[in-house]
């Protein structure tokens, strides 16, 4: 994955940022700074999945300039915080792999449905590939969206009875209403 230059916040160069603070008020500030940094970083890099075991390979959690790493347990706790606001979700029980939703699934769903409505594609069937990689979505926010995330977003729409997923082995498509 190509590295997009992220504009690091001041905290990134502040060593205490990489230690979970015991003082509650300080900690909440620290954690919220981490949350926004993670979302911003993932958005810039189109990063949908973080594996906590390999988190240190990301410059996000490892500032080699000041030689500080964020402890994996702290990463998990921050991601757990993110999941509370619907911005992340654990993929396994051990909480090693996480999906990051810099837009929540609901936001993704709304965006996709808006796009479908704008193009008058209700009652038609689209493949998931078309939705994420298609030519007419290149300028959209959800262009290049991870298939698993896309399915989850569409499941939200399905819950609202706005589409129906067709998931067979060969064809993965969705019919919008």
């Amino acid at each position: 994955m190509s590295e997009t230059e992220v504009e690091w916040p001041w905290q990134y160069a502040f060593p205490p940022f990489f230690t979970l603070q015991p003082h509650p008020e300080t900690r909440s500030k620290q954690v919220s700074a981490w949350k926004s940094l993670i979302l911003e970083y993932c958005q810039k890099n189109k990063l949908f999945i973080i594996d906590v075991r390999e988190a240190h390979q990301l410059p996000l959690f490892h500032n080699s300039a000041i030689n500080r790493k964020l402890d994996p347990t702290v990463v998990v706790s921050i991601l757990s915080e993110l999941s509370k606001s619907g911005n992340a979700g654990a993929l396994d029980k051990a909480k090693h792999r996480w999906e990051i939703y810099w837009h929540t699934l609901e936001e993704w769903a709304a965006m996709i449905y808006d796009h479908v409505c704008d193009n008058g594609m209700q009652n038609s069937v689209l493949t998931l590939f078309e939705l994420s990689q298609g030519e007419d979505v290149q300028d959209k926010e959800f262009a290049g969206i991870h298939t698993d995330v896309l399915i989850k977003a569409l499941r939200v729409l399905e819950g609202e009875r706005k589409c129906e997923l067709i998931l067979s082995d060969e064809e993965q498509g969705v019919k919008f209403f």
Partner: protein
Amino acid sequence: MNRWKYTTPLLLDNESTLTSEKNVRLYDGDQKTSFEGGELIITTHRILWGRPGAISKGQTCLALNLALIVYIEEESPSAFSFSRSRKVVLHLSEPTDYEQDRPQQTSIYNFIKLSFREGFNSNVTGILNDCIQRKHWEIFPQPTAAEPQKHAPQIKLRTGIVGIERSLQEKQKAADESISVAFQDLSKLMIMAKDMVQISRTISTKIKERQGDITEDETVRFKSYLLSLGIDDPVTRNSYKTDNQYYRSLAKQICDFLQSHIEEMGGMMALTDVFCRINRARGLELLSPEDILNACQIMESMELPLKLFEFSSGVRVLQLSTLDSESVAEATAILLDDKGSLSSEELAQALGISFTIAKERLLTAEKCGKSCRDDSIEGLRFYPNRFLAE
């Protein structure tokens, strides 16, 4: 024969038997006497002659002082004599005393003969000559002169309970004396210690007067010396009836002594340091940790300028009662802003306080949201709390 005396065969002091011969007859000059077939003993002082068995039984015998002998010779046996008998001639000086009991009061001869009927085994003439030259009897008077005094105390008869009591008393007295000798040095030391305290006081006031003249370094060193002497009238448990009173006055004394030091150190002193400082100042009459702790615990209720404070980590310090965690945190935060970041060691060095207190100060600041930590493999450091500031 007038030189011989009747006496008991008991040996005198310093006298020892050299040799003895049997079957000896005494001659007065050339004349035979009735003293025949007897036992002859030569000692270092005398020649003793007794009837056979008389000497061993302690019966009266004849004695001749060797001091009277002038010359000894052995009479050569005549050509006609076939007996084994040998005769020794003793030429004698005039007798010195006449009072004593003698076998013969006067004699025309100046010599006597000892006739050994069966000859003699040992070299009698040689032994006698040797004795006369050594003059053992002349060494004798000196010890006799000293004798009466020497024996006097030993002769004391101590019988019965009174005697035992007296000897016990004497032993006690001797022990008392040796103990007081042993402690003489210590009491001198105590007297000197008071003077030393006095001297240290005058020096410290002098230092205060001319603070500019001496370099900072010297002042610090001097102060550290003076710290070791300071309390000349220590509060001791013995002088109080109840523990409570004792702790109260002890608390007061600790405050008086430590207040200025604690102020210098930024308002806090770990209890271990308090313990060391106090006991060093007291020198003798040391306090137990328990006593100090008890005294410190009542300081707050007595409204003294110092109080005991326990950090949440369990570290206990004595701090100025005017100090609260808020102001400590404030002061630490200012320092942090100055330095950018601090570890406990650096803070301890910067303020000249102990490591534990430095750490507690930083933790206090953190608790108040004034600092934040950076816990890495390089150790625990503290930074100004930019999370809350920005």
